[in-house]
């Protein structure tokens, strides 16, 4: 504890800085680091930049919203993943363990099926995610058990499967030439369509959920102990579990609604963060946020530059996440797991 978290947080900060630079500078219209700094600096001081107007447009209007979205989504998924892994006392848990992604997926494909606008689709996805987790929680609480955590996870698996069937049904009924590709694209995750108007609906829930989790950071340490042990230490585990699940779900649902389903980040990044700063939540949460943002910025840059067409994010994170996950399984005895 007294050991400094500074080295670990510095590494996370460097990853984030690298992600930001790479995301702003690389692309079809390359921007040099000097131009980038010039534009951002002038903007901050309210001056006219010396760089050409085209550069300013690319940085602020074309890449800016997408960079902000990647930053927020990556941080949000990583923070929610860290919270859920602690709460479920299992390092192999991802933020959609309680059905947030499946609920959001069903909401989104229904939105696409009824040809709602982008706002309608995102709203349905957001509400779908929240509703799915609420349903899982209610079912889990109704089935009184001595192991509330296990029942919750099983309810999540079952409801997730049902929602998956719902997604399958809507895809089956969808118009195969227009709607089905849109659904598939959404389900694989992408930030390509992000615009400035997406940022506020994303930032609001992410900020609220993250603030709640950060405020509860010391209690989250105790919540990672078995239920009875945590209660004997003076924590009202029931209400606190609802608060943590609600906050982490708010953050996850808002992210998924904006970006579609991006797996792996919420699973993998908290592990890297623990390797850097240890499992103590007061330092794990900031480290996860920094690393998650940086990680998704790097992957999103790869997604839009590696091939002539955009590669869906969900595919890239899976390609990178799978070998990592296997390494993780082989290395579970490591002290920080």
């Amino acid at each position, binding site marked *: 504890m007294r050991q400094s978290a500074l080295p670990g947080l510095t590494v996370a900060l460097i990853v984030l800085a690298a992600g930001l630079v790479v995301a702003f500078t690389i692309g079809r219209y390359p921007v040099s680091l000097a131009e980038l700094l010039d534009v951002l600096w002038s903007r901050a001081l309210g001056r006219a930049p010396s760089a050409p107007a085209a550069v300013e447009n690319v940085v602020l209007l074309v890449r800016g919203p997408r960079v902000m979205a990647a930053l927020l989504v990556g941080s949000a998924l990583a923070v929610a993943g860290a919270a859920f892994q602690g709460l479920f006392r299992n390092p192999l848990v991802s933020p959609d363990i309680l059905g947030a992604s499946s609920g959001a997926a069903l909401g989104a494909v229904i939105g696409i099926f009824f040809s709602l606008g982008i706002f309608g689709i995102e709203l349905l996805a957001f509400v779908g995610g929240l509703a799915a987790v609420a349903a899982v929680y209610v079912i889990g609480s109704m089935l009184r058990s001595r192991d509330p955590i296990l029942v919750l996870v099983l309810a999540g698996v079952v409801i997730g499967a049902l929602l998956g069937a719902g997604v399958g049904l809507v895809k089956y009924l969808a118009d195969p030439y227009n709607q089905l590709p849109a659904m598939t694209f959404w389900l694989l995750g992408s930030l390509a369509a992000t615009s400035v108007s997406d940022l506020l609906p994303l930032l609001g829930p992410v900020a609220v959920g993250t603030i709640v989790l950060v405020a509860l950071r010391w209690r989250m340490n105790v919540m990672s102990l078995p239920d009875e042990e945590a209660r004997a230490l003076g*924590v009202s585990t029931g209400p606190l579990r609802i608060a943590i699940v609600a906050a982490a779900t708010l953050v996850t649902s808002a992210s998924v609604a904006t970006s579609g389903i991006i797996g792996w980040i919420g699973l993998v990044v908290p592990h890297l963060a623990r390797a850097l700063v240890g499992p103590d939540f007061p330092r794990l949460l900031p480290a996860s946020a920094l690393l998650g943002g940086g990680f998704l910025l790097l992957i999103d840059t790869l997604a839009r530059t590696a091939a002539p067409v955009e590669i869906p994010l969900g595919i890239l994170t899976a390609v990178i996440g799978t070998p990592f996950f296997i390494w993780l399984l082989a290395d579970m005895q490591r002290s920080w*797991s």
Partner: protein
Amino acid sequence: MTLAGRDLTIGYSDRVVGRGLNVALAQGEVLALLGPNGGGKTTLLKTLLGLLAPLAGEAAIEGRSLVSLSIRERARRIAYVPQLHTPTFAFTVEAVVLMGRTAHGSLFSRPSAHDREVARQSLVRFGIDQLAERPYTMISGGERQLVLLARALAQEPQFIVLDEPTASLDFGNQGKVMREIRALAASGHGVLFTTHDPNHALRAADRAYLLRAGERIAEGNVAEVLTKTQLEELYRAPVDTLTDTTRGTSAFLPG
């Protein structure tokens, strides 16, 4: 000040585990709870911790029902040392002991300088302050048990309840934990522990409570209660007694 259960019916909503149980534990006293597996030891322990509400009767501290106390109020009076387990995450020893300060802060508060000082003194008391920075998952079982004792002490409770504190420890560490239990009582704590070894009760406890199939078989001073006949009745198995005639001490062997 006493921690007491009166006319307790203990168990779960679908299953009664024990009936008509009366237990009392004073500060400065060690009570050992013995009995065969499935006899209700753990259920009684949880009831006296306030983790499980009694189905009938009352568990109370200083005359106040445990059920009427808030979770935080209970945690500042009674500490729980669970059976040794390997935690999922590698918190440092200091972080684990700091968790003992949870009930002394508010929901959003961070540990104060005072909390850190109490945690440090707890570690010093058990002679493990040099482990403070080590991951809790990377120390030995005996050290982990001492860390859990230090965490319980950091709660600044009047009573400490331990679930099989000597199980899964090597011979030397069993003795060490029993000495620490005596020391906790000497510093004014009421200590309740369960054990499968009557010798540990003889060694560390003032009184013993024998529980079989949810019924009290006997209760009283260890020297009076822990006898060959009582133990054979408790475990329904033959027991041998070894007596050191020069010192007047006894020990038991199964079989």
